[in-house]
């Protein structure tokens, strides 16, 4: 029987959503490939997470639960995943394209000699082989990619693959394994940054600000609207390069590529490199004083007007809307 291996990432004792997206996608592919799903879970004191992976589609969880694995380190984590890949000889390996997955997957790919396709937004099975769709040029083009040989290893863009309905009755086999935990690169400290509230690449709603806000002192208008909508905050390259906000907020070709359900662009004209980073959003709202701004070409809803009048009104209305809803 063919096997699909997925990697499950967790933080603060909880599985991160992209891990469940990967297991759910593996379950979907497993039906077409008649495969079983094996998930690799690495950390310390994390055995309790196995059942949730099972409920979402894992048939087996390879559990590396060792005190020294409490913090992520590339080398032992890659060893663990490679160990499972070597033993299970999977047809497919799926890893979330998160900060951790981006660091880990290439290391595993080189270790097991797998072809790796990054940042996939769709996987299809054709003649029992996988075909991937992935953005290139930050979404200015989409490539269809195929693998030669196995394993067919892919990283999955967060927020794109749906999480399946959990079935608590599904049984999962937990296979306890150990790995050499030595590492030449180690995390010694972690400090949360301001954007810690809602992560851009995993947010359902993003409110982004651009040069139309005129100065960093007005960026709070975007932050307030984001707070009212329960959204993450983004920014254009222009305002990042001008030093108004940190680079981690940047959406676009040299920042983050995002695919939220709703993207609200405030005072962003829509330079090609910005559009590249957000035009795969499901719905786009553009608020800008210039009716000819290129951002309106990708928007679903356009509002031409004064940001300084519109944003506070929209924030208040959104607050009332959500207060009325709850």
């Amino acid at each position: 029987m063919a096997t699909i291996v997925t990697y499950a990432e967790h933080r603060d004792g909880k599985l991160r959503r992209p891990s469940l997206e990967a297991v759910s996608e593996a379950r979907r592919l497993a039906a077409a490939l008649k495969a079983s799903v094996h998930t690799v879970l690495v950390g310390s004191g994390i055995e309790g997470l196995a059942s949730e992976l099972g409920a979402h589609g894992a048939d087996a969880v390879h559990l590396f639960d060792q005190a020294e694995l409490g913090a992520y380190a590339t080398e032992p984590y890659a060893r663990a995943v490679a160990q499972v890949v070597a033993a299970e000889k999977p047809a497919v390996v799926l890893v979330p394209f998160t900060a951790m997955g981006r660091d880990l997957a290439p290391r595993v790919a080189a270790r097991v000699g797998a072809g790796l396709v990054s940042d996939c937004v769709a996987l299809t099975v054709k003649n029992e082989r996988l075909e991937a769709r992935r953005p290139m040029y930050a979404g200015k083009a989409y490539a269809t990619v195929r693998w030669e040989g196995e394993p067919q290893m892919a990283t999955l863009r967060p927020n794109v693959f749906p999480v399946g309905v959990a079935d608590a009755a599904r049984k999962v086999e937990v296979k306890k394994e150990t790995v050499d935990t030595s590492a030449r690169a180690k995390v010694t400290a972690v400090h949360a940054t301001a954007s810690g509230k809602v992560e851009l690449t995993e947010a359902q709603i993003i409110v982004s600000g651009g040069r139309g806000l005129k100065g960093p002192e007005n960026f709070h208008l975007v932050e307030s609207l984001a707070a009212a909508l329960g959204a993450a905050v983004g920014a254009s390259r222009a305002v990042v390069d001008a030093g108004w906000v940190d680079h981690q907020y940047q959406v676009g070709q040299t920042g983050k590529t995002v695919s939220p359900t709703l993207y609200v662009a405030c005072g962003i004209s829509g330079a090609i490199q910005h559009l590249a980073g957000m035009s795969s959003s499901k719905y786009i709202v553009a608020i800008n004083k210039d009716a000819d701004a290129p951002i309106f070409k990708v928007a679903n809803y356009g509002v031409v007007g004064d940001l300084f009048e519109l944003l506070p009104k929209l924030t208040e209305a959104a607050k009332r809307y959500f207060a009325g809803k709850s």
Partner: protein
Amino acid sequence: MKIAVCIKQVPDTETRIRIAPDGKSILESDVNWIVSPYDEFAIEEALKIKEARGGEVVLVSLGPDRAQSALRSGLAMGADSALHLKDPLFEQTDTLGTAWALATALKPMAPDLIFMGQQGVGGDNAQVPGLVAEILDLPQVTTVVKADIQDGKATVEREIEGAHETWDVTLPAVLSAQKGLNEPRYASLKGIMAAKKKLIETKGAADLGLTAEQLAPKTKVVALELPPSRSAVKMIEGDADTQVKELLRLLHEEAKVI
């Protein structure tokens, strides 16, 4: 301290992408080629380390003839020498083959530090740093936004979702540069003139002892297309109060996103 910096030549981020007649690559005719912006951060950091601690900065780029101009740009910024990896086999290979070529070229140089951008803009794979590190059996830290290099070790900050991690890493190591690490310098006129006199060494697959079999791609782009066009914008008219009310109504009733 010997620092190797791997750089990639990529289309300018403002490039309008057009698909070539083969249906699986881009039309290169109007493309303005630049050093991938993340690689510029890598070059800048290497130069800063060299200025602080002494040593040399060696550039390595894999690509066709035009990659020479990317190497020339890096030399103009202040790098000491450059190696161009050029071979028809390299043109057809994938990320893993690229990493094998780079790693094989880097190994005899025995650098203390290998820097590269966290991803090549355009391909957007973000794979080569980790692949090279594994092939060379070196530790890695990716998406580095701060680097403090000491004797035989480095303390660096890595960007993850909503946090920065501090890492201790032994050298030699592979570090990949994220935006925020530094502000790359502009090449001075003197630097540009000096770069013209610097020799760019060229090596092919045979020079590295790599065979067609080793460089055979394991992944292949079979089609490239422009993204689906988006539906026409619905402009919301009226005064600010009307616009706000109508926008929320549409988001709720039509888009069903709130």
